[in-house]
């Protein structure tokens, strides 16, 4: 980090901050149940669910494990499981 004349910063640079480390619970998707509706993606406050082919999957580098995706999934396809188990 260098300090410049004013606190002006390049865009999108919090990507260095892997908030996945905050997680206690991890979302796990049962793609059997998933209908690909994308609601989980819409409501992920960290914008970490990405469409990967026709699947929606969280980027675990950043997912904080809030559990919203599991809560909003109309198919109950997502389960929150304890991290590191």
């Amino acid at each position, binding site marked *: *980090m260098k*300090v*410049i*004349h*004013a*606190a*002006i*910063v*390049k*865009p999108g640079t919090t990507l260095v901050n892997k908030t996945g480390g905050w997680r206690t619970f991890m979302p796990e998707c049962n793609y059997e149940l998933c209908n690909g509706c994308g609601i989980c993606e819409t409501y992920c406050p960290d914008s970490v669910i990405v469409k990967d082919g026709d699947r929606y999957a969280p980027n675990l580098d950043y997912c904080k494990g809030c559990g919203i995706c599991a809560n909003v999934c109309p198919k109950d396809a997502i389960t929150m499981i304890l991290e590191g188990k």
Partner: protein
Amino acid sequence: MDRENMSVVDGAYAVAHAVNVCKPDVVAAYPITPQTNIVEHISQFIADGEMDDVSINVESEHSAMSLLVGASSVGARAYSATASQGLVLMSEVLFNVSGMRLPIVVTVVNRAMSAPLSIWNDQQDSISQRDTGWIQLYAEDVQEAADMTAQAFKIAENSNVLLPVMVCMDGFILSHVYEPVVLLEDDLIDEFLPGYSPLAVLDPDNPKTFGAFADPGAYTEFRYLQEVAMKNAIPVIEDAADEFKEVFGRYQGGLIDEYMAEDAEIMIIAMGSVVGTIKEVIPELRAKGVSVGIIKIRSFRPFPAEAIRKAVASAKVIVTLDKNISIGLGEGALFTETKSVIYNSSIRTPVIGFMLGHGGRDIPKARIEQIVMEAGEVMKRGITVESRYADLKEELL
């Protein structure tokens, strides 16, 4: 100075005219006596089609300055004018502007602070903002206030500086006086003042984040760089004065200006309009054999420490005049800071601080004479004096 090109106008007009010539992109101000005339003239220029429609009326000074933060961040040359309560109401934003390094220029039409309410002149308002990281220039007369406005933009926008500038002019005494001035020459301005090219702007094509916060790991360094920028401003201010002279032929000093100071034993240090009165008194006193001269402070921030140390070399007593007081220290800032910057040098000249002209109390020549006489006494008798009001009316107490 060349009478041909002079017009007799009031101080506010001369400054408003200079602002127009400097082509700001955005002007936002809130009325307050005795600044109003400046914005009124600007409004009339615009209403008459003599100036681009850049000005906007806002709902408070806090918002005036905040609006300029936005404007400056997209690359606009931004200007405001204010005074007293208005300036202090902006204070939070003033810190912010300098920290964000936005080269905004503001005319401060100096006025006393309330309570008790006073619409009259002193310099408590701008002096009380001396920690905010703004460059502060003080004008002696209307011509200088106008010319300084152009210099201010040039200094502020210099890429080694990038600090906001206050051009301070004494309320009423300068803002409301009609006198002959050369209105800033429109045809010469481009040569002196190039367009503003910011280092970074808010732009959807090149998104940047402005105003991130700094944790303890980096905050000090941002502040340090502001101080470095102030140091950088020292030659820039001098250069701006020199270049101004080259282009416009007028010169009122750099960081400081000296008058009959070279050999003066009694050295007055002062700033603002009182300098004019002093300059009329000095030759009269010189004629009577009193060795007196004056150092006029043009730049109070950056404080011209080095220049003062040099300029007081000949002095046997130094007298500072302050139109402000730090209540509880009992000193004016010029008194305090002058002593401070010479303390660690080899200079040991006594410094006497007089406060005067607060809340619009007039400063006649006799007051200056009396002060110089007192200083002469101190010099002769080698006694020490503390700061005091030169014009207190004991009978009211």
